[in-house]
């Protein structure tokens, strides 16, 4: 009895117990501001990686412009907390602002979803790239939000606690999506789009859902990002940012939530580690920017699926999808229904 309890509720319980620490530790200075910052970036990057993994990993599409969705989320959330609501309301409005940013980005996701009905592969890549560039270009021309100089004035609303909550929520929602009918539809499109339509998968619906959901998540990450830096400008959301996301997805593993967590964590920590190493060696920091593209190339040549390619951690798999549960179910059926074996 106790085992069943722990199996079902063990993980959620642990997550809840850790939560207070995310508030207390930074406040008491036990976690110094730098570590706090890095942890927050890890969290934001996890959300970004999950977002892109849905489209590139699970669906096998090729989006290179996700930074555009992040930008839309960042700007929307920031506009809300700086212009629309009084600063005092900040901490309470924050989740709403994030949500609004996500929704705005999600709507933009429709903009990519529709072209994806007719184009695939490299051509869709270019479409997403053009989209990212257009977003950046539009933001540069909108003087009302600061144009090329950027937008500022946000309060530092992104606390470790908020990042923690968002990461857990994002993974929960993504997991549910992936292990559902729609998630299976996503993967079937990757495997063989025509065949999937011919076994009743409504590929248009799946594409719209996936792009919108993915964009939504990127938008949330954007909002978190904006309220950490307290300043955003169009140049934060270029193809370099999209490349970071690509590296994290392909490093951690395509089609895997655990892979997304791994990729984001390893990558973020590696870059931070490099910062210190380069400092010690007296080499200029600019060499860090060479790392991401180099990793990307090496990954593509030697291990394109990434660390966890197409596999998933047990703790991220819903109980009913785990091998034991399926085996149980199967045995049940084999026992009760006599197998009408057509062929031995």
């Amino acid at each position, binding site marked *: 009895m106790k085992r069943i309890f722990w199996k079902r509720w063990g993980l959620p319980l642990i997550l809840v117990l850790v939560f207070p620490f995310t508030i207390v530790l930074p406040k008491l200075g036990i976690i110094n501001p730098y570590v706090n910052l890095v942890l927050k970036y890890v969290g934001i990057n996890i959300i970004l990686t999950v977002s892109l993994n849905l489209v590139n990993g699970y669906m096998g599409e090729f989006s290179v412009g996700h930074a555009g969705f992040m930008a839309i989320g960042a700007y929307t959330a920031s506009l809300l907390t700086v212009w629309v609501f009084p600063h005092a309301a900040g901490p309470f409005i924050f989740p709403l602002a994030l949500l609004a940013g996500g929704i705005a980005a999600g709507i933009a996701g429709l903009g990519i979803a529709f072209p994806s009905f007719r184009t695939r592969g490299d051509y869709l890549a*270019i479409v997403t790239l*053009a989209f990212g*560039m257009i977003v950046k270009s539009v933001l540069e*021309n909108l003087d009302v939000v600061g144009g090329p100089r950027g937008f500022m004035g946000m309060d530092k609303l992104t606390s470790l606690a908020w990042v923690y909550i968002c990461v857990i929520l994002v993974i929960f929602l993504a997991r549910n999506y992936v292990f559902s009918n729609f998630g299976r539809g996503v993967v079937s499109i990757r495997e063989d789009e025509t065949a999937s339509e011919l076994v009743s998968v409504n590929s248009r619906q799946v594409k719209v859902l996936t792009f919108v959901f993915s964009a939504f998540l990127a938008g949330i990450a954007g909002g978190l990002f904006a309220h950490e830096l307290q300043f955003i400008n169009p140049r934060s959301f270029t193809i370099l940012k999209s490349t970071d996301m690509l590296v994290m997805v392909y490093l951690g593993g395509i089609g895997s939530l655990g892979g997304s967590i791994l990729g984001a964590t390893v990558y973020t920590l590696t870059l931070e580690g490099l910062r210190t190493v380069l400092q010690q060696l007296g080499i200029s920091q*600019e060499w860090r920017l060479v790392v991401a593209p180099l990793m990307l190339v090496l990954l593509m040549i030697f291990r394109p699926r990434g660390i966890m390619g197409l596999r998933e951690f047990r703790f991220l798999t819903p109980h009913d999808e785990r091998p034991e549960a399926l085996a149980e179910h199967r045995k049940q059926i084999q026992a009760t229904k006599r197998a009408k074996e057509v062929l031995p």
Partner: protein
Amino acid sequence: MQFYIQQILNALQVGSVYALIALGYTMVYGVLSLINFAHGDIFMVSTYLAFFFSTWILGLAAGLNPILIFVATLLVAMSGTALLAVVIERLAYKPLRNAPRISAVITALGVGLFLENFMVAFKPVGPAPRFLPALIPAVNYNIGGVMVSTIQVVIIVASALVMILLDVIVRRTMVGMAMRAISWDKFIVPLMGIPVDRVISMTFALGAAIAAVGGALYGMAYTMDPYMGIRIGWWAFIAAVVGGIGNIRGAMIGGFILGFVEIFTPVFLPSTYRDFVAFSLLLVLLIFRPTGILGRPMAQKV
């Protein structure tokens, strides 16, 4: 009226450079079905090669005939860039010949970014913008109210010559025929005794050398910095797609169209809208006519 002629001339100048670079994209796509996102950055490297060589030579023998120096710079830039392109092809693209297209495209992206950031971090280069020394006397002529500079003329004429030469190579030589054959059917071609690997390497080299011509010419008229690959490379890429990627004449047409977009957009809209116009053009085209102006439609078999 003069204003428009002036602008058309400017558009031709810029368009020529775009066309030269677009050719590289289109040729590689033709043989490998790969969009070599690194091409714009290869172009960037070529301008730096031209810069370093010409400054070095001028440092050694300032009195030499500038035309000679110019030609030498051109040749050095072309061969150096061609070499770089072949190295990249062998190291990064060849291993992925049979991998899903996505891997190759992402790799190309990575290579391009690697080149950019490497040049920024590499001390002798650095992020600061530079000029190529003026190897061609920059004299301006006033023809009926229109300002024509020698550099402008050189760019337009040189580009035209290169494009004609390329057209001849592709249509009349064995190499060109091999290139075209590979673009139609990659698998049968080796069975016909054509050394596919070598032809592919030569395609890369040729595309890069042509881009280097554009690079050297560009460097004389404008400033250069490590991130110019993104700006110019992407515009040239749009040019290639607009014209129909895989189609050489399409690349030339596309280049000039983009030249016109660049010059004429500020006439009607604030100049900061240039990127927006260009990328919107790309988007619209991709949605309604993905194969571009001269491209061939692709069919799928079920």
